[in-house]
């Protein structure tokens, strides 16, 4: 009878064994990049302005990726994401003010409030999710927008939340909040990416591709829509708690309709349905906002609104206008990336030409399709090593066009 210690050890070995066997570097790059980025920053003790920027980037990434779960993977447009953030911020700060004197350390308080704030926001996510069952497209967008405004209006008028003056947070977390923020980014990435790359992820994307067919295949559409909304609301709440503990005062004005739009823009520019895209877009837009705020002092700050609007329009029109698609393939960033990738693979595969990967082209322009052309399919691979599944080694895992199973 192996001792329980043995069992635990085997459990762990088995657990990490599975992951090791199914390990594909392509899907773990974003974890590696973020951890490296975090370690570098911790070592180099950045100035306070960089720590503020990093914390804001961390919070923006959590918001963008959680919104991407609903907009990109479930295909439901949500304009009320700042509402969940508002709940998280107010509940988190309110509770941290109450329990701070009983529990001394800031970290424990932060973790506790993050969980509670996230759960409360998740409950509201469940309520909004219900409306998603009956409504589609524009109607759902306006209901989520209405939800954001209602939450903001109520939080403004609750006396316990400090009313118009806003809720003060005497125990501000201080400058190294960005470490906690990025750790939360990693936790969220692991959970959301693992969900997407599993049968449940396939079910959610099936609902987005063709809800009628998904229903006919016996997928419990209600369950998965609610699950997506609840999970996305949970992480938005956590981001809200982080925002609350980072600023010394939170006002209802910080979570306005423009904040929801800003998060949506991060998701769309990053590419709906692409998690790495959301990460890059969130970091970039937060950086541009802070950069423009510094570089345009005084009365030029109206220019910031203008520059932001122009960037928005040019990128979206360039990416999605059907007429520009031929230029897009020639000059865009992804075209550059493809050329470099092609050169590298040519050199690598010089010796065994049959293994070169075919690049799949797909394009369809309708509400349910993804505006930017991301190879959705790769995102859904499920970390299993297919070579072992079939007897006779891994020769027949590469089909005629040389594409390896994922």
């Amino acid at each position, binding site marked *: 009878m192996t001792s329980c210690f043995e069992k635990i050890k085997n459990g762990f070995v088995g657990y990490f064994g599975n992951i090791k066997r199914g390990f594909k*570097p392509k899907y773990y790059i974003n974890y590696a990049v973020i951890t*490296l980025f975090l370690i*570098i920053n911790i*070592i*180099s*003790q*950045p*100035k*306070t*302005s960089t720590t*503020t*920027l990093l914390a*804001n980037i961390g919070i923006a990434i959590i918001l963008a990726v959680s919104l991407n779960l609903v907009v990109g993977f479930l295909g439901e447009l949500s304009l009320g994401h700042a509402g969940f953030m508002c709940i998280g911020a107010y509940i988190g700060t309110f509770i941290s003010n109450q329990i701070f004197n009983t529990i001394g350390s800031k970290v424990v308080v932060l973790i506790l409030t993050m969980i509670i704030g996230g759960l409360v926001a998740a409950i509201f996510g469940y309520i909004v999710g219900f409306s998603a069952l009956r409504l589609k497209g524009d109607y759902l967008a306006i209901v989520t927008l209405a939800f954001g*405004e209602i939450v903001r*209006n109520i939080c*403004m*008028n609750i006396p316990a939340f400090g*009313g*118009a*003056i*806003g809720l*003060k947070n005497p125990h*501000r977390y201080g400058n190294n909040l960005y470490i906690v923020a990025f750790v939360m980014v990693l936790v969220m990435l692991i959970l959301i990416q693992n969900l997407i790359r599993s049968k449940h992820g396939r079910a959610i994307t099936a609902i987005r591709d063709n809800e009628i067919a998904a229903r006919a295949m016996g997928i419990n559409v209600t369950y998965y829509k609610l699950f997506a909304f609840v999970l996305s609301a949970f992480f938005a709440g956590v981001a809200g708690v982080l*925002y609350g503990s*980072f*600023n*010394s*005062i*939170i*006002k*209802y*004005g*910080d979570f306005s309709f423009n904040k929801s739009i800003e998060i949506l823009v991060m998701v769309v520019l990053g590419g709906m349905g692409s998690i790495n895209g959301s990460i890059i877009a969130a970091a970039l837009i937060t950086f541009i906002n*802070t950069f423009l*705020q*510094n570089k*345009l*002092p*005084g*009365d030029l*700050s*109206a220019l*910031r*609104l203008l520059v932001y609007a122009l960037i928005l329009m040019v990128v979206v029109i360039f990416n999605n206008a059907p007429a520009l698609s031929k230029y897009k393939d020639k000059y865009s960033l992804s075209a550059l990336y493809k050329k470099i990738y092609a050169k590298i693979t040519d050199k*690598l595969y010089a*010796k065994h030409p049959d293994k070169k990967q075919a690049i799949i082209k797909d394009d369809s322009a309708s509400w349910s399709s993804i505006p930017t052309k991301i190879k959705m399919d790769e995102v859904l691979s499920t970390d299993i090593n297919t070579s072992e599944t079939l007897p006779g080694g891994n020769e027949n895992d590469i089909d005629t066009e040389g594409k390896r199973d994922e």
Partner: protein
Amino acid sequence: MKKTLARIFSVALVLVMAVATLASCGGSAKNYAENNTEYFIGATGPLTGDASSYGISVNNGAKLAIKEINAKGGLNGKFFKYEMKDDQATASLTASGYDALYEAGMQISIGAVTSGACESFASKAEENNLLFMTPSASTASVISDRSNGFRICFGDPDQGVLAARNIAAKYTKVGVIYDTSSDYSKGVYDAFAAEMNKLGKSFTAKTFDAENNKDFSAQVEALKDCDVIFLPIYYTEAGLIAKMAVSKGCNAVLFGCDGFDGIKDQITNKETGELEVSNKIMYITPFDANSTDPTVKSFVDAYKAEYNLLPDQFAADGYDAVYAIYNAMKAANVDNVTISPSELCDIVRAKLTESTFVFKGATGEVTWNEKGEPTKVPQIVEFN
């Protein structure tokens, strides 16, 4: 083959990263002002968004003061540099604005314009013991919670009490309209309500908020037959309420506080120049644009020359905040341009809180108690 290549590449990457980090580790609590060639006064304020008219007025007033000080040769030969970052009255942009200014060598500041933003500015300034003299953030707690805070304009509570005493003395049917989404408005209203109850006077209160601050037909209709309506709000909304009162045929007296200053050009008809509002308008204010006092007159003329606009109370506060700091530094004859913020803060605070130190500015005579609260002689301006 592919595996080895990937392994070599990743090892090389980590090496490069390690070298980069060692080279760039910087100390933390260093004095960013060590290579300043001028004294640096910083500030944040809403230059875009809904509250931008107040931010821009404060900014104009402060820039004018800096221009005049530098024209007069600065402080024994050394000049002043001033910059305001746009914070849209949100806590997070104030925080990032403060960091940018602090790392650019800010030594002293006139804080933030709105109370909410000033709370965030003040708590970060407290960490670096950097003095701030806020021109217009009137919530009491911004100053009382900490030692490095000073203020030019009235605190909310004493305006509320003063208004209550004046109104209770002269009028019977009293109405109030206040903005639940503005901390200034709510602060004054709470003090006003407490004082009115103490005096045993009743009043009917109506509210509005930032989303519905344009159409006041319902509120004015309800308070139509009061003899006075107390409006602890800013002049933009006050102008709309005044015009609504006219169109609703309500001729109650409109009693305001320091946020009312600037209502005049909201209700004068641009072409004909005369007032469109017949109601009597009174408001408590330390600053009256057309007063005959020489310091006020010189400020108003200089402001009109610079921006061809009539200065409002926010501009006057911004102007006075800079001059107050300048006078305190001159009295303490500071001459080291690279002085660190906390050192400068202790010097200026000691000077400001001396009972003998009196500052005469565009908004009247001001002395500060050791808490940083100003004591000013209020005037009540009337027209119509």
